[in-house]
């Protein structure tokens, strides 16, 4: 009986670890992180249930043989899971996305759904054979051992969760899956030695596959990155086979796995890079200037004066800070709160960033705080003239918090009486003839209703390189004539201000759409890329 306990532990740990690796792999490709977690764990657990029941039907005298088979299958599926998802991603992108009969938004949505569902095949297989293992082990343990075996089974799941939480931020999916497979192969080898000492063929095959894939791991990962950022219309010009081969040859994409996100540097021309976080473009040599100039200067023009105390939430790249520092000594102090320590360090020391932000984070007026923006505004006492939020768009529950009524209440409290809040809105453009039919209508209304419920009675969307929002507690007229505060604006100040009015506001009261930490509104912006 006792020798079954470590087997039960390892078996459940490996099963859960393999399925979490699927979540990790898919999570970087599908924008809806909740859907990824729910569907993958759902299929895995459904598999566990079905597998547990089906294993009850197997012949009693073949219990150990079936157990060994189940563990081998787990190993094999875990090994190929991420590769399977990478290949599917490429195939769906190449053949379905931008198919002529679909609108771009529909193509993204259907590509993502198709990828999400077809990636569930390995999750289901993992569940089936993990569940089967548990039933077979329970059979070997007899009734007296049930409690103890269940206990180690759950302990294994705990160990897998902890290992995953601590390793997922450091290792790529393929590295993590190699780790899980090595553990699982250890288990297979033990079972093989104990129950089937004369049949080693398939185990040897598994070992060989593992070594092969490990040697290829870096290339596969890079190939996948290339397929992620490949230019589709260009790729379509050459044949399918050439495209596949070509992805191995392209200039290398650099990926940094930070504690909180994946930072990608994609070559742009011979000398420059586009900077992506979690697959969303952050800094693009072409529009980088206008984005930050709109966000910082237009609200100051609206408010009619230069703020003295400023809070910047997010924006660890230092570009918002660079624009703020243009106002010289009229800005007294800036608190900048950034979650990701890698981002802060890179913005201070990495040439790519310092060239763009001109060393803004080293300025003595900028006080950089490493921490969660939500906790910062919740637990601090200062009052600010201006608050700029430069967050990623709300693709997950975690980010939705930063667009919640609670967050905006805290922000309103942290503002002086005539202070303002400005942020990149993630509002999608509305079709003014028929706003309710527009793609972003619900999210747009959710955001506006949330801001108003938090006490911002003056909410104005404004146009820049994309849509931004200017909000303050009391409604007043905004400045419409460009005032030169002695600063230089590269994209032309007057032009910037005039362009900002080129949007109309549309608002209906929908209290049911208010986004709260305690009741997240799911109408978040959907990713428009695949």
């Amino acid at each position: 009986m006792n020798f079954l306990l470590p087997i039960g532990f390892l078996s459940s740990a490996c099963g859960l670890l393999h399925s979490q690796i699927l979540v990790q792999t898919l999570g970087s490709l599908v924008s809806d992180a909740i859907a990824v977690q729910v569907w993958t764990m759902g299929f895995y657990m459904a598999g566990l249930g079905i597998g547990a029941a089906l294993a009850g039907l197997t012949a009693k005298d073949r219990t150990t043989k079936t157990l060994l088979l189940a563990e081998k299958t787990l190993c094999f599926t875990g090994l190929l899971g991420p590769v399977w998802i990478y290949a599917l991603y490429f195939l769906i992108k190449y053949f379905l996305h931008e198919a002529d009969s679909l609108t771009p938004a529909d193509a993204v949505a259907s590509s993502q759904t198709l990828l999400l569902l077809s990636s569930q095949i390995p999750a289901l297989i993992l569940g089936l054979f993990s569940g089967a293992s548990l039933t077979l082990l329970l059979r070997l343990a007899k009734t007296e051992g049930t409690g103890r075996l269940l206990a180690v089974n759950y302990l294994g799941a705990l160990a897998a969760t902890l290992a995953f939480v601590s390793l997922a931020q450091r290792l790529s999916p393929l590295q993590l899956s190699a780790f899980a497979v090595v553990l699982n192969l250890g288990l297979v080898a033990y079972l093989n030695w104990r129950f089937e000492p004369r049949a080693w063929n398939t185990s040897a095959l598994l070992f060989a596959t593992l070594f092969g894939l490990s040697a290829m791991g870096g290339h596969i990962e890079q190939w996948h990155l290339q397929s992620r950022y490949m230019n589709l219309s260009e790729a379509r010009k050459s044949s399918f086979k050439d495209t596949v081969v070509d992805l191995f040859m392209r200039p290398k994409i650099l990926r940094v796995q930070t504690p909180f996100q994946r930072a990608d540097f994609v070559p742009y021309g011979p000398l420059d890079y586009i900077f992506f976080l979690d697959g969303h473009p952050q800094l693009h040599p072409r529009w980088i200037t206008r984005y930050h100039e709109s966000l910082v200067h237009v609200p100051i023009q609206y408010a009619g004066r230069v703020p003295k105390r400023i809070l910047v939430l997010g924006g660890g790249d230092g570009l918002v800070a660079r624009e703020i520092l243009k106002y010289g000594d009229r800005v007294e102090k800036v608190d900048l709160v950034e979650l990701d320590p890698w981002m802060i360090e890179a913005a201070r020391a990495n040439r790519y960033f310092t060239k763009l932000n001109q060393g803004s984070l080293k300025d003595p007026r900028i006080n950089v705080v490493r921490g969660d923006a939500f906790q910062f505004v919740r637990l601090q006492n200062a009052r600010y003239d201006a608050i700029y939020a430069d967050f990623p768009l709300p693709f997950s529950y975690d980010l939705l918090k930063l667009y919640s009524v609670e967050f905006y209440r805290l922000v309103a409290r942290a503002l002086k009486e005539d202070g303002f809040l400005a942020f990149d809105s993630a509002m999608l453009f509305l079709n003014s003839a028929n706003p309710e039919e527009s793609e972003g209508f619900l999210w747009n209304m959710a955001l506006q209703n949330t801001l108003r419920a938090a006490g911002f009675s003056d909410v104005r969307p404004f146009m820049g390189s994309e849509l931004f929002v200017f909000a303050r507690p009391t409604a007043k007229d905004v400045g419409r004539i460009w005032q030169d505060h002695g600063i230089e604006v590269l994209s032309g100040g007057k032009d910037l201000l005039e362009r900002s009015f080129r949007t109309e506001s549309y608002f209906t009261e929908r209290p049911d759409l208010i986004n709260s930490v305690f009741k997240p509104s799911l109408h978040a912006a959907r990713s428009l890329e695949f």
Partner: protein
Amino acid sequence: MWFALIYAPVVVVIAAACIVYELTLAQTAAALLGGTWFQYALTIGIYLFALGLGSLVSVPTPRPAQWRRLLQLEVALAFCGTLAPFAAIYAERGLRIWVLAADSAMYGPLVYALIAALALIIGFISGMELPLLLRLGEGRFREGGVLALDYLGTLLGTAFFLLWLLPSLGLFGTAAFAGLATASAGAVACLLAPSTERRKLFLFTFGLVGGGVLLWYNRELTEHFGRFIYLAGANP
């Protein structure tokens, strides 16, 4: 046959309610401390650990006492699970006022400890339940059948929580709803139990009424906890 037909939904509902309690707690932790992804992973980890611990302890229940033990656990589960998020938010407010002012380094770890303790209690109770459910179903289901139902319940609970409960009822409504579900499962289990155990029915009726009242006042609760407890006094 009729036993299996009534017993199966009880097992599914209990498993679903347990995971919903834990996810509610994870969402509460995320609201209090940030880091949604981490809070969910950690809470699930603690839940699994506590399940293991619970099923280890549960072994020696003698057959005649099994139904009584199951119903006791049901009452405890409904009570602790439903009230956990409320307790967490109240306690965090206390910590914020008393600890944060004096020693801010202790604030974070103490809130973590608080959430972990609540997750551990709920997980422990459901862990004690599972082997009991397996044994009560023994002989009436195929091998692995009850286990399959338990996993099915967990799956349904997770999907329900994320796709329907949290977005449409909100955190407090979800806790109340899970309380209602647990009390209903308890009431049905009472009917299956030997007649001496049926007296517990009034307890579950009480739980049903309590859950219903909480759900009815969902909006007021959200306003009270979300605004006046969670945000008020944040800056002492």
